[in-house]
């Protein structure tokens, strides 16, 4: 279990995240939804130690950890591909740094390229592919980490509906097969409802959890059912309220 | 054969001709010596390196040697190459400078700060002029003179820049220092470190013999000597060097032995113009083969 208590971070004296508490079940898929600029990316940065928190504690499986830097794989909102490496080299970076045997991972990367519709582009430099392709490559790189927690910051925002849907199911199956604990930020409520075990609706900065919606465990889901339409409406109206404050 | 290393005061020039004659004509060899000749980066280097025994012999100037002795550097004069001052106060002739007092109110350049400027002051005092502007021209001698940026320069050699001026079509004029109240001194001498002298006394003695022989041979067959030199130093321009040689021939030292009296006179003069702070007793730094 991942437990955050009283997490906090200020920028220029203004709190962006303040007394933030959160419990996440190991092996669950949680999705964070919140207004733009509310502090979601900042939260992930705190979790991974990318920026230092000012106060608060983190526990992972009952043990206090300074941060999740070495436990979690993190896909940031920017793609952060290295412009001098090809897509394949970029995706294989985590493998370069690990001490495990390579062959298996090589195969894994090739498989992912295929499933992500990037086959044929392995040797392209990031500068020579489209925005969506860069995003997919960054996602592959994140999946190449073999870590227990996966943090995804708007991983599919630049993709068309079909590619997005196919990658959503891929994410689902990866999470199920490998029992990863996934935290994902998205602005797409359908996506949240399709993937999440738990949806966390966040407030404006200073960010708090406004609503915590536990979804039924059936997957894949039929989002056209009235149950989900009701939840979608609820999230939308909550967000709307947030924006009006 | 025994090896000796020698560092010139500057790049090889006509003043060093006897060394090349001795080397090429096998005089060193006959004395059981093998001499390697090196050029320095700067005129003060050879003395420093000789004093610290990194080379065996160096060509230095008498004023420089006295300055070194005055500042406690253990250096020994062991032989002579040019027995009189070459340094002159050079100007372009036909411009109303006939006698030193004509320099009153003029701009006087000098080559080496800390030496030639003081020498100029001494020169002025001896020759009774007071007002003049001193300018450090470094070694841009001919350009400074010919463009009229200075009226005269202290430091050029009478067997060299004088000839160069002529070759560029100017009439040079110059005052020879020893004729205008500055004590006579040995322009180029061989020096060595005190410990080197102790260790290699025999070799140095042979070196003195050899170099004197070479000087004599040069005097006897000047044309041949010049040819030997020009062959050994191919970058030397023939015309200039030939003209320079004619003026140098008489100036090569006639004996390797130092005149303690002459040196002491110059050392006292150096102290009087402030070139050295501590007086120097020259007999302690001169070695005449005994």
């Amino acid at each position, binding site marked *: 279990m991942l437990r955050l208590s009283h997490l906090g971070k200020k920028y220029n004296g203004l709190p962006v995240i303040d007394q933030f508490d959160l419990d996440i079940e190991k092996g669950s898929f949680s999705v964070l939804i919140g207004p733009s600029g509310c502090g979601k990316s900042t939260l992930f940065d705190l979790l991974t130690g990318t920026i230092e928190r000012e106060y608060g504690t983190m526990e992972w499986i009952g043990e206090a950890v300074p941060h999740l830097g070495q436990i979690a794989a993190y896909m940031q909102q920017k793609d952060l591909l290295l412009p001098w490496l090809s897509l394949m080299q970029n995706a294989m970076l985590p493998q370069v740094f690990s001490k495990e045997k390579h062959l298996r991972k090589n195969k894994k990367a090739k498989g992912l390229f295929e499933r992500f519709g990037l086959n044929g582009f392995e040797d392209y430099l990031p500068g020579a592919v489209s925005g969506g392709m860069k995003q997919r490559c960054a996602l592959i790189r994140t999946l190449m980490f073999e870590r227990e927690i996966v943090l995804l910051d708007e991983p599919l925002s630049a993709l068309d509906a079909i590619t997005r849907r196919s990658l959503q199911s891929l994410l689902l199956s990866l999470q199920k097969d490998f029992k990863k604990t996934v935290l994902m930020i998205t602005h797409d409520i359908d996506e949240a409802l399709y993937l999440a075990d738990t949806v966390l609706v966040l407030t404006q900065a200073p960010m708090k959890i406004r609503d915590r919606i536990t979804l039924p465990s059936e997957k894949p889901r039929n989002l056209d059912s009235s149950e989900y339409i009701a939840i979608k409406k609820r999230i939308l109206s909550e967000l709307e309220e947030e924006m009006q404050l | 054969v025994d090896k000796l290393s020698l560092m010139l005061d500057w790049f090889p020039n006509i003043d060093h001709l006897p060394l090349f004659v001795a080397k090429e004509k096998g005089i060193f060899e006959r004395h059981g010596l093998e001499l390697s000749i090196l050029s320095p980066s700067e005129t003060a280097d050879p003395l420093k390196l000789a*004093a*610290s025994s990194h080379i065996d012999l160096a060509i230095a100037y008498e004023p420089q040697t006295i300055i070194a002795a005055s*500042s406690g*550097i253990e250096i020994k004069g062991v032989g002579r190459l040019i027995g009189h001052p070459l340094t002159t106060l050079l100007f372009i002739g036909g411009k109303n400078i006939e006698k030193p007092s004509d320099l009153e109110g003029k701009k006087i350049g000098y080559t080496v*700060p800390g030496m030639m400027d003081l020498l100029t002051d001494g020169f002025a005092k001896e020759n009774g002029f007071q007002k003049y502007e*001193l300018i450090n*021209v*470094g070694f841009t001698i001919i*350009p400074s003179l010919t463009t009229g*940026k200075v009226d005269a320069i202290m430091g050029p050699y009478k067997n060299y820049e004088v000839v160069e001026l002529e070759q560029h079509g100017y009439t040079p004029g110059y005052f020879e220092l020893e004729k205008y109240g500055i004590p006579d001194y040995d322009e180029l001498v061989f020096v060595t470190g005190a410990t080197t002298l102790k260790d290699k006394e025999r070799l140095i003695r042979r070196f003195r013999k050899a170099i004197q022989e070479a000087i004599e041979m040069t005097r006897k067959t000047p044309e041949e000597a010049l040819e030997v030199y020009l062959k050994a130093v191919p970058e030397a321009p023939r015309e200039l060097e030939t003209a320079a040689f004619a003026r140098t021939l008489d100036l090569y030292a006639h004996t390797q032995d130092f005149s303690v009296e002459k040196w002491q006179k110059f050392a006292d003069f150096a102290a009087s113009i402030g070139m050295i702070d501590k007086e120097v007793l020259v007999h302690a730094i001169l070695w005449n083969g005994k």
Partner: protein
Amino acid sequence: MSFVKRTVVSTGLLLLLFLLWEGACRLANIPIFILPAPSRVLFVAVTQAPLLAYHAAMTGIEIILGIFFSITAAIPLAVVMFVYPSVEQAFSPLLVASQAIPVFALAPLLIVWFGYGIWSKVFMAAIIIFFPIVVNLLEGLKSCDSDYRKLFHLMGAPFFQSFRYLYWPWALPYFLAGLKVGVSVATIGAVIGEWVGAQRGLGYLMIQSNARLRVDLVFASILWLTAIGIFLWILVGAIEKRTLTWTR
């Protein structure tokens, strides 16, 4: 590492180096007229402070003026070379040549042009400082991302505005790297300039001391010169900190 701790460590390192040098001088018995021990250099640098300060003031002014003029010339030249590649092609050989000319070849010309005053020294220093600044600035301008260039083109930005808002800030870290090199080599530039025609300045003092075999004074001059260099270096570092605020 905190600032204080870092300073302590770095001071310790420096001290260690000086001790090694001191030890080497004493143990290997290196004569003072070849390499004076640091203690000796320091002693001279302090006891002769008035003399050194007198000369350093002159050299300092030359350096400042040299830096000023070289920046003034470097920025437009780099910009023109950037805008017109043919000018770059024509000028880069000359720039490289300017680095290959030793003082003594230039000295007569400088004297004819500038006389013996301060300007020949300033020119000499400027020539040396100029080069790293031009090269770095040019490289910096060229490194500007083409997406941004196109954006400015699309916005119809006139050149001066593009320069002000895009190219200049983009090339600034390069420019400052060049300036760091520049202010450091400015020291030797001024010294070299002073070998001809100076009556005052650390370079003048150095040759004078060298001719009189006062090598400790030569090194004390180097110490003072280094102090000027380090001062300027730190200054550029401070400018860097103030202007490159967006990089962190």
